[in-house]
């Protein structure tokens, strides 16, 4: 498992999700803290491509050896891609939560929602 890290180029949601915005689309995932709290992830249940997601609402599930947890969407929009490699390799969420362990790509419906997300310093200051 990777060491704790919180990249500076990402935006964070208090429910331990990250968003990487690239123009009108964004990539979502869960933070190092989230994967550490979950423990070994054994299954990712993705949403369907084309389905809508709403900021602060669950859009997918991750299952670890301990529990099944909802994944909260940091921003609103429509799913344009899911990380299909996680079907056979969900451990990427533990090993590389910001890289190979990305979950979905979303076409944003309200890019201004980024203003309500946290930067790296604010998010990490909230972690106890």
């Amino acid at each position, binding site marked *: 498992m990777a060491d704790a890290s919180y990249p500076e180029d990402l935006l964070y949601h208090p429910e331990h999700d990250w968003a990487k915005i690239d123009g009108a689309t964004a990539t979502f995932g869960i933070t190092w803290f989230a994967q550490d709290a979950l423990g070994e992830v054994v*299954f990712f249940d993705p949403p369907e491509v084309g389905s809508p997601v709403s900021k602060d609402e669950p859009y997918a599930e991750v*299952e*670890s050896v*301990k*529990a*099944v947890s909802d994944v909260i969407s940091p921003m609103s929009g429509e799913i344009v891609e899911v990380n299909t490699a996680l079907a056979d390799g969900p451990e990427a969420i533990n090993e590389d939560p910001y890289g190979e362990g990305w979950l979905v790509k979303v076409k944003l419906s309200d890019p201004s929602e980024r203003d309500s997300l946290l930067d790296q310093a604010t998010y990490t200051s909230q972690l106890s």
Partner: protein
Amino acid sequence: MSTYTSTTADDLQAMLAEIGVGSLQEIFDRQVPAGVRLGRPLDLPAGMPEQDVYTHLRDLAARNVSAEDEVSFLGGGMYDHYVPALIDMLMSRSEFLTPYTPYQPEISQGGLQVMFEYQTAISELTALPVSNASVYEGPSALAAAGYLAKLANGKSRFVVSGGVHPHSIETLSTMAAGYGMQVEVVPLRDGVTDPEAWTQAMGDDTSAALFQNPNFLGAVEDAEALAAAAEGVVVASYDPIVLGILKPPGECGVDVCVGEGQPLGNRLDFGGPSFGFFAASEAYLRRMPGRIAGETRDVDGRRGFVLTLQTREQHIRREKATSNICTAQALNALGGVVYLSWLGRRGIVELGELLLQRTHYARERLCGLDGVEALHDQPVIREFAVKLQAPVRAVKERCAAQGVNPGVALVDENALLVALTEQRSRADIDRLVEVVGAAVAAERSAVPA
């Protein structure tokens, strides 16, 4: 009998003082509006001495007739198979007698191994790769399979064969109403699911297509054809006893196979408890109810068992659980796996062949009687239905007076559903034929045509 009372007068006063109320009556006076109060004691019989209660209950119990007190051809979902003493011996071991959810399951290695062996047996019988560690009973297993389909595809309609046990259809419908599903029942034709109506009932909104094999009237359905014509998740409810001789559902295109486990080493016991089995293809593993035990190695490389899948259960996931089966029927399922081990691979095939022969013998003999004809001509394995030219209830009463229970009365069809087990010998069948023949003849001569 005196009521057992754990609260003393002093306790009561202390509690009343604590909440600032003068008497128990005052609580009712303050909380329950006068208009809805009865204003007099309930009209219940006076208490009885313990000895009289015992006598009363004994008299009530004596009115029950068990399958051992008559020659019984009752079936319709539960069957009077012989239960070897081995099963009682193992089920009554104290290590197994508490089937309650183990919250630290790995401490009970024996219990987990039983679940694992049970799952393996069910998986082999059904030819489906995943089995859970059992559910309550057959009807709720079918309802749970419907819910799995709803979770998996979110569609709005269940298509159910009219050959599914009425109790199972009722259970499925009750549960499905709660999450807003439509339930459409496809009628039988000549004793089996009408293939055209079945195909026509399917649509884009079909969440699951559910049938039973053999169906409620004992007829063997064409599982492959029904599965091929179905939309959505293909669910089949099977009698486990016939799986020794029928092509397994997993090889017929069935996605989820459920059923009543009672015929496997559990007695009739006036209707339960028993257990339900639940097996599925791998695609539905994450949507399955209940728990799955798995085999693993410990740090020293020794074989051990763990609860591999339980993360969707309510004690782990609270309101978002997809399953609320926490107290599994582990003890009854233990009876099931011991029974299967006792029969063995050859035994279950031989049992199926024996049932096949006796059932056909019984059907042929009964249908040879005046006033008795087959309700359908479909292939049967262990149960069949015959139509009577005399009122079925009256015929049953006449048979009962002769110590024979000829089967379940299907009042709408004026038919008898006759079930066979290995406990009903050829001589028993001959006796059935003799008694039913006499009863039908007597009723026909009593009631002018």
